[in-house]
């Protein structure tokens, strides 16, 4: 069953008269122009040579060139930046998910006294504006000698990713029928066994969703990288990209455009792999639990 079953007008496109269809297609064209237009334009610009660029933003390139990509990757150091971002996103998300598993299990499947209060406290971490904690974080990491280290940033990402992961995983685990583990408990299984053998295997789709969302969030993240790192060797791509915004590169756009495309490619891949899971309710559904 696709989720079209939830549409309140399923199979009723035919009910739209001519005006309805016209409005629909006009709206579609406008939305595509506004949301797809800029993205396509950037992709187009990224494969233009310098001369082609000067012919105007909408002119098609006379020939495709990948020179901007090579330049951005090698001369502008996008290779290491991407590697850093990949490390932060992978390690940070993995840690956040691992940390969140047992709390999500405990808060969804066990009758912890004061469950709501505990959950509420943990969730305030989600709503905290980053800027309110960067000064203490900066100071603390410095005193722990973790300032400007990859480890430091990973730990920070994991800690701030955890609440969202608890929210998502708890929402997911709540949907698993209670009877499943009751049977296991009646057989004399311990919490650990129930968690490890029953809940964890059933939560794998939720874990994938959580990991993906966390990966994207860390990949997008900027403030922590900016404040907690000093040396370019450690920068994630969001911070490293800032150098594209200088007069030197902003005179011909193919370099910044290529940089933009490169920075987005891992997300596009992830998006393609997991889009259905993320978009169809799981994401928004996580907040319902």
């Amino acid at each position, binding site marked *: 069953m696709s989720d079209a079953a939830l549409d309140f007008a*399923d199979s009723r496109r035919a009910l739209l008269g001519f005006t309805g269809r016209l409005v629909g297609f006009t709206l579609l064209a406008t939305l595509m122009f506004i949301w797809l237009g800029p993205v396509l334009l950037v992709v187009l610009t990224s494969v233009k040579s310098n001369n082609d660029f000067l012919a105007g*933003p909408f002119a098609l390139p006379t020939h495709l060139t990948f020179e901007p990509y090579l330049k951005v990757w090698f001369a502008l150091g996008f290779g290491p930046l991407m590697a850093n971002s990949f490390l932060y996103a992978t390690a940070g998300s993995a840690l956040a998910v691992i940390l969140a598993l047992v709390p999500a299990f405990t808060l969804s499947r066990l009758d912890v006294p004061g469950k709501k209060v505990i959950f509420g406290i943990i969730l305030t971490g989600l709503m905290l504006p980053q800027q309110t*904690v960067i000064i203490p974080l900066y100071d603390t990491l410095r005193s722990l000698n973790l300032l400007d280290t990859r480890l430091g940033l990973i730990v920070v990402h994991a800690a701030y990713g955890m609440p969202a992961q608890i929210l998502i995983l708890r929402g997911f685990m709540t949907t698993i029928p209670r009877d499943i583990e009751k049977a296991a408990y009646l057989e004399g299984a311990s919490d650990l066994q129930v968690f490890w053998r029953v809940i964890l295997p059933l939560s794998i789709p939720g874990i994938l969703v959580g990991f993906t969302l966390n990966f994207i969030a860390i990949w997008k993240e900027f403030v922590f990288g900016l404040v907690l790192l000093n040396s370019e060797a450690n920068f994630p791509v969001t911070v490293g990209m800032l150098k594209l915004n200088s007069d030197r590169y902003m005179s011909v756009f193919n370099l910044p455009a290529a940089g933009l495309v490169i920075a987005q490619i891992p997300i596009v891949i992830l998006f393609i792999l997991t889009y259905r899971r993320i978009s169809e309710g799981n994401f928004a559904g996580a907040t319902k639990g």
Partner: protein
Amino acid sequence: MSELLQTRQPSLFEFARAHVLATIFGVVMPLVVFAVFVGYPIVYTVVLSLYEWNGMTPTKTFVGLANYQYMLQDRYFYTALFNNLKWLAVTLVFPVCLGLVIAYGLRAKILPFPTLVRTVIFFPVTMSLISVGLMFLLILNPLFGAFDTLLQSIGLGGLVMEWFGDYRIALYTLTVVSGWAFTGMPMIFYFAGLGDVPKDTFDAARIEGAGHARMLIQVAVPQLRPVTAVVVMLTIFESLRAFDLIAVMTKGAPFGTTNVLGYLVYLESFWNSRFGYGAALSVAILAVSVGLATLVTRTLMKGAFDV
């Protein structure tokens, strides 16, 4: 449910004894993480806001409420605060309402190609705001930008403006760009939410003669109140985080007119080395966010979940 069925809630102590591992890793651990990464920094910030500190020397000078007194007279503080509020207002109107309308259009089958629409609109949500900012710097560039070129070619050259240079519109340029990147978020929440609204209520409204505008406003929106509460919360925190775009697009220029509180914290602390004042500004952000969150809880959330 199960809590209701139980005759007696076990005490925390009894629970801990029965579930040792779950207590340690499921309750204590996340609370410790909370204490270290949320509780402690907040206390630290509040305390630091009473000191003067350059961020380097080990000594901090206690100055009492001096930082707050300064803040209340700081022109840049007010500009930044109002910019935050304007940012929030624009975000609530443009991406949130538009996201709702798109979600409705998709569910009501007015918009064709639903998967395409959802993918395309949601895509920018996955982009970093640095990428988004850089992208619009290219598109809105006064010399080679596609947007101005487009306006001129369709005879609207008169509308061309200094999108980032003009102090009257720079902030709105930023909010519109941020809205472009954010629309997918409310869209997807409302799309999921509309899937949960009983279909029959739309059919009934249609039979009674309601058009789409009325169905959206009188049937969908009231039944979507729980979703709206969540979306508004998200929007508030998203707009308070308006930092990345400013850092890449304007850096607060021209003349600090595009500063928001978050960026001001960064400037004062890490550029002007006034960590004490930065901390005071952080406390202000905290106060604003707590205030707005309370407002939402008291109004939108109230009774939203028992319809």
